[in-house]
């Protein structure tokens, strides 16, 4: 097990957004998170990437690194947590002043201080993997949404994180661009990356997920293999939600 999350809670002032989240992430598996708007999916991913600091709960990693948010967490531990995962954002958030390949090399060179030569070779391979080797010297504004998102994926892969986080990676894309991005993610799943993804692409979730989590109101309502949660959900709320997104 790569990461075990216990009793995770997050509030913004008086608003409790995550309440008692318990989940395990096995190494090399894909966990899909679904749920209605405002249920706390993004907040959960942001807690994993230390973009938000949880109010309570415990993260334990397989290497022994453990954070108990009941106590004040120091900056270094937050940084360690952040560096365990790579995030792919819904709105890409590429660095507009850097070319595609510079977006990919920035983390490894500046943060990890790896050699430029090695990093550029890796970045070239990553851009090839996401189908953008011929676009590597373009700036983000010269790329389509789908291309930008694939650069975003390459950027997250380049830092070689234990955990890849995707927050609705295709929901800002035109329908005809969604396929390319999903197929890249599928390849990553097959290569054995550990992935947590928020998505409403049910068919995709069926195919790639090892575990599906359905959230509502800051709680995990239901979790289990996709055959169970997506095809035969036991909770009312899950059924209603799936019906709504399958027959809009």
């Amino acid at each position: 097990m790569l990461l075990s999350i216990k009793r995770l809670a997050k509030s913004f002032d008086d608003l409790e957004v995550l309440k008692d989240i318990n989940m395990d992430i096995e190494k090399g598996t894909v966990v899909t998170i679904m749920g209605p708007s405002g249920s706390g999916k993004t907040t959960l991913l942001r807690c994993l990437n230390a973009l938000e600091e949880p109010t309570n709960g415990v993260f334990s990693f397989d290497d022994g690194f453990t954070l108990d948010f009941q106590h004040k967490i120091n900056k270094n531990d937050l940084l360690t947590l952040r560096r365990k995962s790579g995030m792919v954002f819904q709105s890409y958030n590429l660095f507009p002043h850097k070319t595609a390949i510079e977006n990919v090399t920035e983390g490894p060179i500046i943060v990890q201080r790896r050699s430029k030569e090695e990093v550029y070779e890796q970045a070239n391979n990553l851009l090839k993997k996401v189908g953008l080797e011929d676009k590597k010297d373009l700036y983000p504004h010269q790329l389509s949404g789908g291309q930008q998102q694939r650069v975003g994926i390459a950027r997250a892969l380049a830092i070689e994180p234990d955990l890849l986080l995707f927050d609705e990676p295709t929901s800002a894309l035109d329908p005809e661009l969604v396929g390319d991005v999903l197929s890249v993610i599928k390849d990553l799943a097959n290569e054995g990356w550990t992935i947590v993804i928020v998505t409403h692409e049910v068919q995709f979730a069926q195919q790639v997920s090892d575990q599906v989590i359905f959230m509502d109101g800051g709680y995990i309502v239901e979790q289990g293999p996709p055959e169970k949660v997506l095809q035969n959900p036991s909770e009312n709320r899950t059924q209603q939600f799936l019906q709504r997104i399958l027959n809009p």
Partner: protein
Amino acid sequence: MVKMSLQNNVLLTVAEGATGWELIEKSFWPMVEGAIKFTIPLTLISFTLGLIIALITAVMRLSNSKILRAPAIIYVSAIRGTPLLVQLFIVFYGMPSIGLTIDPFPSAVIAFSLNVGAYASEIIRASISSIPKGQWEAGYSVGMTYRTTLRRIILPQASRVSIPPLSNSFISLVKDTSLASLILVAELFRRAQEIAARTYEFMIIYVEAAVLYWVVCFLLSIGQEALERRLDRYIAK
């Protein structure tokens, strides 16, 4: 460090009773010399120091810590709330009475740097704030600290936003340095005053000074456009 101008012999080189063109010819080099020796160095040094002060102040103002924010807010408010000429006089005429005598040129550098620092810090702060939050988060998500994200991701983008207003401050500073004439710095305008006082040709001499300032500012604005074009290469058009 600086030889002062009261006994300056510029006066003597411009003859009394010269015709208009002769007057311009004779006064031209002393004024250009004032610009090259004082106006331009004073502007460049003060602006550079001012930018450093501004960056530090802006980052302090954006910090979460009250202890860092408070002095930055007070500094900016005090500078913006008082006339530049008064600030110059405090440094040059005021400091000696608390035992700190500073030469005219360094006095001017101190006053102008502090002045630019306050105004430019507001420009830099606004330009940092204008960068979307997602850029900070993208920096963090590849493992960067606050500092690294600021330096590598935010400031390069903010600098593009802040170039037009900072260029305005820079050009204003060129003109404001004429106030240094009042604390005895032998810059362009003080040269003009000395020549005018001697020849009584106020119109010719002061218009000539104005044209010289104009030329300097015009050249600077060309430089500004070139810089903007260079930084624009990643911006969608």
